[in-house]
């Protein structure tokens, strides 16, 4: 049966300019105008945001939890990517 509720959209809210857009939930809407208006009514009733993104849920590509181990493995053994890996002689400032 075809879903009568329209496709699913994911909603991202930016609290104020300069901050990142954060995922806050999802909703159903038939087109993008309706999606952004519904997002406003559903997720920003108390001034939670100053900007919104809505993205068709079907367009999102996600990593899969089963492969998370091997997928993110390449970064596990690279401690030299962190500043704490390096030793700086005592007395050297501003670094």
């Amino acid at each position, binding site marked *: *049966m075809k879903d*009568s509720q*329209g496709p*699913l959209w994911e909603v991202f809210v930016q609290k104020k300019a300069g901050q990142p857009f954060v995922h*806050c939930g999802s909703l159903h809407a038939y*087109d993008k105008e309706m999606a952004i208006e519904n997002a406003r009514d559903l997720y920003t009733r108390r001034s939670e945001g100053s900007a919104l993104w809505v993205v068709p849920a079907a367009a999102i590509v996600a990593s899969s939890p*089963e492969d998370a181990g091997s997928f993110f493995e390449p970064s596990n053994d690279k401690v030299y990517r962190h500043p704490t890996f390096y030793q700086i002689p005592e007395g050297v400032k501003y670094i």
Partner: protein
Amino acid sequence: MDNVVDVEKNFNSKLEKNDFVEPKDWMPENYRKHLIRQISQHAHSEIIGMLPEGNWISRAPSLRSKIVLLAKVQDEGGHGLYLYTAAETLGASRDELLGALHTGKAKYSSIFNYPTLTWADIGAVGWLVDGAAIMNQVMLQRTSYGPYSRAMIRICKEESFHQRQGYEIMCRLCFGTEEQKEMAQDALNRWWFPTMMMFGPPDKDSPNSEQAIKWRIKRETNDELRQKFVDRTVAQVEFLGLTIPDKNLKWNETKKGYDFSEPDWSEFYSVIKGNGPCNKERLEARNKAHSDGAWVREAAIAYAEKKKENILAA
């Protein structure tokens, strides 16, 4: 098969560590089913819960109380939508969930099958019913399923206004005329025991509870939550100068909590079965709204299709 054992071990260790389970993670089929049932019932309760309060929007005693009530009812609709999308992350479709509500196959909180007879009932519902719901929902912020927990965190932020506006109505009535105070007492008399039922049957008769606690879907039992609710509410009642309609209500120094009477559980089961004062009315109103809105959904789908064609043709 090693793989199956591994994923199950992984799932259990997440629960032990109080980690969250996310939609794409492996989970036992019964955990998934339990969650779909619980989250969708919760969503249905929000949606049906709009009806008893909506009943008073057009008769609110002032413009202020009218805009407040409108905002509250709109919130309940929003809460229903957060919860439906949380249930959908588990593979249920919105149409399927709504269908189960409309045919009566799915349940919703039995409290909404009681009528709101006077304006004081709007006060009592906000204060007691939302108060009891908050108690449950605060616990559910720590539920093991990520999307449910996130929905609960949003909902809890919004709910506290609901309870406060209800108590404000009660204050106005209780410190108003003698007649108004009687109206408030009458509302408390009618809502007290149905509110106590909201936490569900006693632990010893609650078959789903034990498993739900094991899975960390629930973090506290029905009886624990009910006790907490009574302990917190008594002083609020005393402040209003009202009387809780329970002769057995008494402070118990040894347990540092109140003793109180159990609600009439046969009434609870009878209302769940469909014999409450408003079951029929609620389902009819919901079905009517859904079928009256069918043309809007059809038109919106047609419009979206047409715009897609225009883009392709251009």
